[in-house]
């Protein structure tokens, strides 16, 4: 149906499908992620249990924190590292040759990332929530919140993917994006509330985080499990706004890069 009205969408759908198949054909990285997931949850669930013995702020219990961590890690690990693939392609000069095909370079990468994202979210969900139930020895206070998390989470991961695309494009100027990747990753850990919900942070930092996209990537969707999530309208509006910012930045960066490439080569 979609391809009838948007004939060109078929090529990007094929791209998504192939990236999904590629991930299935080489699943070693996914197994490693699942193992890492189990380790993180084991360590932090023990930590939260000990911390709960002396009392946790905001009236949260250790089980809620374990479920929160499982949710944020699930979203973080499901978001494909599209920026690293793009940076490598740009560094090797392959990007110039990718332009020889009748496809949009950015759309192809986004389609590829969407395929991976859908599979990663699907395959890591039972790992995340099975382990969370095991280590927390409890289900979330409101199990239906898991469905809400899935919806918010998909939007959050798409938004995070678009930011990663923009990050990957900086390789045109930086060549090696690992320092920027490192900074971005640490900011998303802290300002996104990876380990702890944002209200655990000092107030000034919370206020600062609100002006960045990071809380919408992890904290906002995961907070449905702690009963602190904003309304659907607000979450959707914020995700759309930040996705728009990431998209415009990516398109702007790529058009500048393409101009530079046309003048100075790939």
């Amino acid at each position, binding site marked *: 149906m979609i391809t009838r009205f948007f004939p060109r969408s078929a090529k990007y759908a094929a791209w998504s499908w192939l990236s999904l198949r590629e991930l299935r054909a*080489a699943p070693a990285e996914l197994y490693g992620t699942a193992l890492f997931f189990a380790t993180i949850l084991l360590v932090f669930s023990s930590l939260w249990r000990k911390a709960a013995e002396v009392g946790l702020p905001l009236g949260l219990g250790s089980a809620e924190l374990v479920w929160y961590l499982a949710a944020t890690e699930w979203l973080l690990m499901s978001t494909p590292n599209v920026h690293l693939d793009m940076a490598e392609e740009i560094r090797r000069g392959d990007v110039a040759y990718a332009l*020889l095909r009748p496809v949009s370079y950015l759309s192809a990468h986004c389609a590829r990332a969407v395929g991976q994202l859908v599979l990663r979210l699907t395959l890591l969900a039972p790992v995340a929530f099975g382990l969370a139930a095991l280590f927390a020895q409890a289900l979330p206070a409101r199990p239906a919140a898991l469905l809400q998390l899935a919806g918010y989470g998909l939007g959050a991961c798409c938004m995070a993917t678009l930011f990663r695309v923009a990050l990957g494009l900086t390789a045109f100027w930086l060549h090696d994006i690992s320092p920027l990747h490192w900074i971005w990753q640490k900011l998303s850990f802290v300002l996104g509330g990876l380990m702890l919900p944002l209200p655990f942070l000092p107030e000034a930092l919370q206020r600062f985080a609100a002006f960045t996209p990071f809380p919408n990537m992890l904290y906002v969707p995961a907070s449905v499990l702690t009963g602190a999530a904003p309304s659907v309208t607000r979450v959707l509006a914020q995700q759309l706004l930040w996705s728009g910012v990431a998209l415009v930045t990516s398109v702007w960066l790529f058009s500048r890069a393409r101009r530079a490439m046309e003048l100075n*080569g*790939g």
Partner: protein
Amino acid sequence: MSSAAAILVDQLKKSFRVRTSPARGVRSRLRNLFSPAFHTQQAVNGISFSIQPGERVAFIGPNGAGKSTTLKMLTGILRPDSGRAEVCGLSPWAQRERLAYRMGAVFGQRSQLWYHLPTQDSFDLLSHVYELPRALYQQRLQALSNSFELEELRRKPVRSLSLGERMRCEIAASLLHAPEILFLDEPSIGLDASAKHTIRQLLRDRSSNDGATLLLTSHDTADIESVCDRVIVIHHGSVLLDEPVRSLKQRLNTKRLTLHGDLNDLSVALPGVSVIERAPLQLTLEIATQVTPVARVVEHVLSRANIEDLSVEDPPLEAVVRALYEQEKAS
């Protein structure tokens, strides 16, 4: 120049702004860090040529001659400083996407196949990329599978293919949308002798059958001799020579005479004749034909040795090209 040409290049120029290396010393390095100096490097300096549909042309030159820059302009990756180019009647840099449907490209050191997946999956993706109707795609894939012997390879993941098998798949992938022009950059690099032979044969056959125009760059002159009919030699960004392969080989005015028989005591002391290779039962001579005619040399050796067989050939293209580059360097 004909307007029906497959490729038309007219006074194409391209220069790059290159950062100048700082002089020795901390001071100059520091100055260069904050205020870098640049100079202009002329990569392509007003080249012109045209290629007719169905021609198989080699585009060669030493490293840094401007081959890749020209190819990048012809495929629309680079925008020239001045001049005009048309590929399939389109301006490559202004109409790159439209051109992409009508041209194919094979780069020996790059892959368009998905590494972990069976080749069939990459073919399927390309059929969507080039918006091929399903029936047409199946028909073309079957035809290519038959000529490139891909039936088994299509089911194997790309990572498990040998380099030769992968290159067969790469070329087939580039031909799937039946491009009018195929750009080939070092298609046989890294292949063994047998795989190189297969690739050259396939390229020649496909071009003859489909009438596709080939523009090939390669440092392996055997690729050029086997596939192409015409050679454009480029040096310092300008066309040094543009002529058929056959006449290029005759350009040096030399011939190679190979003799077989009992030749141990044979010495050929004639002006313009030199020994290229001596083996127990074989001797190869290079003859400068303007100094001593071949007939005179044959007569000379027949009268002095027991010759079982002899053959006269043009020098290999490699020797001709090397001589051309050396002449150009000396001038």
